[in-house]
């Protein structure tokens, strides 16, 4: 059966994955399920819970910063806030992000498989996620005081602070394991389980980004794993790797930390780019422009991204040779990203565009990601970096690429695939209203940070010079508006679960395999494994 046809495959008697009767009942049928779709939803619920927690902490931080001096919390608590906000958002929201939710749900379907290669390991990865998160949260309440090092856990403070580091670090270690297992599973799934006829160059773009991401997950994450073990060794046994008093070098900690954490940002962004690459062709009813270039760019980003970690350390005291090498390589990684933007825009050129919610999110993504990307080039320039390092400019940069990039990509994917996942349509009016309010708040909140950074306001300080007061007021008010927009978006999606119209198999006119099966899908996805004869996005 051709991938471009839209016939619904199964008979209408078969229950969807949501109502499938398996070995277990009730909650057990979810938390013991090895169905990739249910696991994707388990991740979705956990992720959204963690996102809400991290976002609330973020709003509390902005409330503290709305005026100089103590506003709602003292310095120590503020330090604990930004530490927890970072740990949650990075390790429990944005890194699992699209792969854990939409990768799990849609990768097998989009390549014509019934599940991932190792379904039990898939469930295990979720257990690692939940236990990691639990440990991180528990670290807040045990010991002398919560961790206060920032999510980067820099030495030597991380082994000297009275903050409760070990549970938090071990929790992140478990989250890393979750990420590795997901990546490993996806790599094997893509290599071994593509439907007959689906050659590599007929595979859609979202799976391609999951493939590139999988390599980064398995080849970068272990480095932070061992680094955390070393940090524990430092704290417990005083092994001296990062302690100058014992001959160690704190900078080596930074090298090791960023050797993972820089490639990690490509784990965060590549799948989001993949989702955008699915959405734009669908709402332009036009094939993706430059498919091969988009594929090559995804791999190039993953590859080059491995060698540029030192741009987080420009002011740390590295050698001149390192400074030069890292800055040059950093500029290189912008090229494949730019190629992707050109291809997305070219897809839209002369297309018959349908301005539905997912497409609006996709356009928003391109806009904010470009701002984030350009600001990255600024930070990648050695001289500018001296002035901007550890200021609000850096905060703005990564909130634009991560929240703007992965965040908007996540919401785009959410609104694109919602009908397929739930079998319902959401209210587009409320979705778009929420988007607009969110966007206005978002731009206000983060754009002001570029200005504040250039003017010299540092990050991770609970207090600031009164000359920075007015822009901070705008920024913090923006946070509140953005939070309201988020609430509208999420409430709309939840309410539509019951009130939404029933969704057809293909509400948007998509051409990839997930639109050929019912909404919501049956437990085994396909009656028969499809035989693929054409590439994706064949609109002619």
């Amino acid at each position, binding site marked *: 059966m051709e991938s471009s046809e839209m016939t619904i495959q199964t008979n209408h008697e078969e229950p969807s994955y949501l109502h499938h009767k398996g070995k277990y009942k009730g909650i057990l049928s979810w938390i013991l399920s090895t169905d990739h779709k249910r696991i994707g939803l388990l991740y979705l619920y956990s992720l959204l819970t963690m996102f809400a927690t991290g976002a609330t902490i973020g709003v509390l931080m902005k409330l503290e910063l709305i005026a100089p001096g103590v506003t709602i919390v003292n310095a120590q608590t503020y330090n604990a806030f930004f530490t927890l906000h970072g740990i949650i958002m990075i390790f429990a929201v944005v890194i699992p992000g699209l792969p854990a939710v939409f990768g799990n749900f849609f990768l097998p379907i989009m390549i014509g498989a019934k599940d991932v*290669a*190792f379904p039990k*390991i898939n469930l295990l990865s979720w257990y690692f996620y939940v236990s990691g998160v639990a440990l991180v949260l528990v670290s807040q309440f045990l010991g002398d005081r919560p961790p206060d090092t920032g999510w980067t856990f820099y030495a030597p403070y991380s082994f000297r602070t009275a903050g409760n580091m070990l549970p938090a670090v071990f929790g992140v270690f478990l989250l890393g394991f979750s990420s*590795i297992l997901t990546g*490993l*599973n996806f*790599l*094997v799934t893509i*290599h*071994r*389980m593509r439907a007959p006829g689906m050659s590599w160059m007929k595979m859609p773009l979202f799976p391609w980004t999951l493939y590139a991401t999988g390599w980064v997950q*398995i*080849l*970068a*994450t*272990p*480095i932070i*794993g*061992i*680094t955390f*073990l*070393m940090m524990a*060794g430092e704290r417990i*046994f*005083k*092994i*001296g*790797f990062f302690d100058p008093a*014992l*001959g*160690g*070098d704190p900078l*080596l900690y930074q*090298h*090791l930390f960023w*050797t993972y954490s820089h490639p990690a940002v490509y784990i965060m962004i590549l799948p989001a780019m993949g989702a955008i690459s699915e959405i734009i062709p669908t709402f332009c009813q036009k094939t993706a422009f430059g498919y091969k270039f988009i594929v090559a760019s995804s791999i190039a980003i993953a590859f080059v991204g491995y060698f540029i970690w030192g741009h987080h350390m420009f002011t740390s005291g590295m050698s001149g040779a390192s400074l030069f090498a890292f800055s040059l390589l950093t500029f290189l990684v912008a090229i494949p990203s730019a190629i992707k933007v050109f291809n997305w825009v070219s897809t839209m050129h002369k297309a018959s565009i349908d301005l539905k919610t997912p497409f609006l999110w996709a356009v928003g993504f391109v806009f904010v990601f470009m701002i984030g990307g350009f600001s990255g080039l600024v930070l990648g320039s050695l001289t500018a970096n001296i002035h901007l390092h550890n200021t609000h400019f850096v905060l703005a940069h990564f909130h634009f690429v991560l929240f703007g990039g992965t965040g908007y990509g996540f919401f785009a994917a959410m609104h694109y695939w919602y009908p397929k996942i739930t079998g319902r349509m959401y209210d587009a009016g409320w979705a778009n209203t929420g988007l607009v309010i969110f966007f206005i708040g978002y731009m206000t909140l983060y754009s002001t940070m570029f200005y504040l950074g250039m003017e010299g306001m540092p990050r991770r300080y609970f207090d600031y010079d009164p000359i920075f007061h007015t822009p901070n007021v705008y920024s913090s008010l923006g946070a509140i508006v953005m939070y309201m927009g988020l609430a509208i978006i999420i409430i709309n999606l939840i309410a539509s679960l019951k009130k939404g119209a029933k969704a057809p198999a293909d509400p948007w006119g998509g051409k990839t395999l997930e639109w050929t099966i019912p909404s919501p899908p049956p437990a085994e996805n396909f009656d028969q494994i499809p035989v693929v004869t054409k590439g994706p996005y064949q609109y002619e």
Partner: protein
Amino acid sequence: MNNTQEIEQEALTSKTGMWLFLFTELLLFGGLFIVYSVYRYQNSEAFHLAANELSVFIGTFNTIILLISSSTIAMSITAIQKKNKRLALLLLGATFLLGFIFLVNKYFEWGHHIKEHIYPGSYDLSLRGHGDILFYGLYYFMTGVHALHIIVGLGFIGIVTVRISKDKIHSGKFVLLENCGLYWHLVDLIWIFLFPLFYLIT
């Protein structure tokens, strides 16, 4: 696809997953080799002298033990393929025993240094130079993480042994044994590099 082909396809999938897992282990130890490179470069003389305090004899003995154990587990795969269940079990038993002896040697090696009050955080070690502190820090940490992997490997061998005896692993389906072998060889590989870096830099 008939049953044999299905088993083969599943075996290849399983083996692919195992190799990817081995890659993560290589990167894990790779991080430690980064640390070793940096501190060896910065403290080459001290490392050179401290290495003299390790027993080349025990190190060589342990290296040879691990190499032989790699060959016994590889031979157990040949045995299973040739439907020689008893030989496979014997060879696995030998692998387990050799791995266990390695750990016993490690226990005595470490014990010797600990008795002389040389271990991370000890007062006597802190009196020595930075180079010595880093050398021993790396020595305990890297051989320690390696030993943890040997313990896991022994557990894996145990599980596989039970499955073979219950005929759940046999000449028609033995990918679990292969994967166990791959893991054990990895542990051997790591030691092949640890050995010269700690014992032969005198």
